[in-house]
């Protein structure tokens, strides 16, 4: 039973932040109650960005947690979390282009090229795109072994996203420390695991 409902429940939970923000946008559009505050564009950019990095880190957490907690069923959620990360990254970019830059293309090009933290954030989005595009079963089967190699790009995307966050630190290191620390733990786990596995191989053959 848990197995059957876990996925749809997690799916809906992950959708909640976006649904709340979309409701806020709808109210702003229809002139209703104000959920987004006096600087709605900035608020939406911050919120979508926060959720994007949270989902990115969460997608990185699945593999270590699956082994540490011995819960193979967690794997069934990994793709969904990863696609949600891309979804929130897209929302973040959309808010930036639409509400903060108003689709002024010359400005957009200049912002992406001239502001390093935006360049970095945008690169993370670009690198995530092929991963999202190959997240379907068919693609996975067709790519076979290459799929896994390709999807290791996630690591680079997370590192770029964390740099993007660190770059906008103003009065508090909290976000930088939190997301940077978590990324370090989950990436470090992979390095250690890789290392200890090769040690074991040597032990067998040596």
């Amino acid at each position, binding site marked *: 039973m848990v197995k059957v409902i876990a996925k749809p429940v997690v799916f809906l939970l992950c959708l*909640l*932040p976006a649904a*709340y923000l979309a409701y806020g*946008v709808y109210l*702003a*559009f229809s*002139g209703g*109650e*104000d*959920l*987004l*505050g*006096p*600087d*709605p*564009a*900035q608020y*939406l950019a911050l*919120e979508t960005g*926060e959720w994007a990095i949270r989902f990115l880190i969460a997608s990185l957490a699945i593999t270590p947690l699956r082994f540490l907690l011995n819960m193979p069923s967690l794997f069934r959620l990994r793709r969904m979390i990863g696609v949600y990360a891309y979804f929130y990254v897209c929302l973040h970019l959309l808010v930036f282009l639409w*509400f903060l830059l*108003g689709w002024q293309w010359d400005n957009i090009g200049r*912002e992406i090229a001239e*502001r390093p*933290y935006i360049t970095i954030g945008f690169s993370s989005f670009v690198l995530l795109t092929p991963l999202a595009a190959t997240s379907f079963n068919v693609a996975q089967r067709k790519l076979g072994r290459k799929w896994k190699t390709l999807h290791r790009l996630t690591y680079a995307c997370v590192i770029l996203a964390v740099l993007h966050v660190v*770059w*906008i*630190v*103003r*009065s*508090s*290191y*909290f976000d930088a*420390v939190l997301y940077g620390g978590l990324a370090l733990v989950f990436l470090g786990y992979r390095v250690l695991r890789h290392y200890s596995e090769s040690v074991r191989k040597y032990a067998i053959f040596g």
Partner: protein
Amino acid sequence: MLIKTKKDIPSSEITPESVYRNRRQFLKDSANIAFGAATGSVLAGPVSAQTGDALFARAPVDINLASKPEWLVEKAANRTDAPATGPYNTDEELTPFSDVTTYNNFYEFGTGKGDPSSNASEFRIEPWTVEVAGECAKPGIYALEDILRPHTFEERIYRMRCVEAWSMVVPWIGFSLGDLLKRFEPNGNANFVAFETLVDRGQMPAQRSRFATIDWPYQEGLRMDEAMHPLTIMATGLYDDILPAQNGAPLRLVVPWKYGFKNIKSIVKIEFTRSMPNNTWNDLQPSEYGFYANVNPEVSHPRWSQATERRLPSSLFMPRRIETKMFNGYADEVASLYAGMDLRRNY
């Protein structure tokens, strides 16, 4: 982190200036009516305007403060209105009270724009003292009442441009900083004046944070001629009331041609100095925040352009994005202070 819920009044409820202008009259009238109704004589007795004013001054407006000093509330209520024309006023739409008081930076109370209003509800301004030090004839520790007593409060409606590229229009209550500084008789060595914000880890949660980038106390400074300029005020209130804690109670600087971070809040120290004093943001990130911090659309912040600003409250689909003006539109008054200076280097 949970999704933040907004408890403030919709930003679409912009206070039209005429309504705001009439508010005092309205309050008088409604006080009269309430008084009349209570005594069953709405039409019978003329209730004096005095009664209305007195009721207004003591109206229990719920702002973030542990207590509101009566004498200060009364001084704020008795302020003179801003002149109709000239740089002390503007015909631009006022930013509603609810936005001015719930969307701002005061990093001592947290990093989010709503943190100051959420975390400052029991802020104490009684007692309050200001230390005056440095190159002057009358240094000392002064009680707030002694600092403010000789000054008549005036209303000043100024644009407030944040370095983060948003802006507001705020009806401040305050008085000329120059008039205050003269009382301490600065001497010939006083080239600059430095200010410090209260440090109180008990009351200011972010000062307890291990993650704060700021080395408290928050510090700011002005060149003496900037401090003495008639546009520069020591603010003690906004709209019709004294300052709420989150806006820098009981005493804050307002220098309308500079980025908002120059407007140091909750001041406890004023020092006249020979050399250029530290200012917090410049210490933190000298490539991004200078000492002068004059509003300048031509000099970008390294991470964003300063050419335009979002006038708050903004809306998603009809964003109020406006061109930023040199010296925030006060160039006629202040440009001469910087004659011959390279404003690209002295940002």
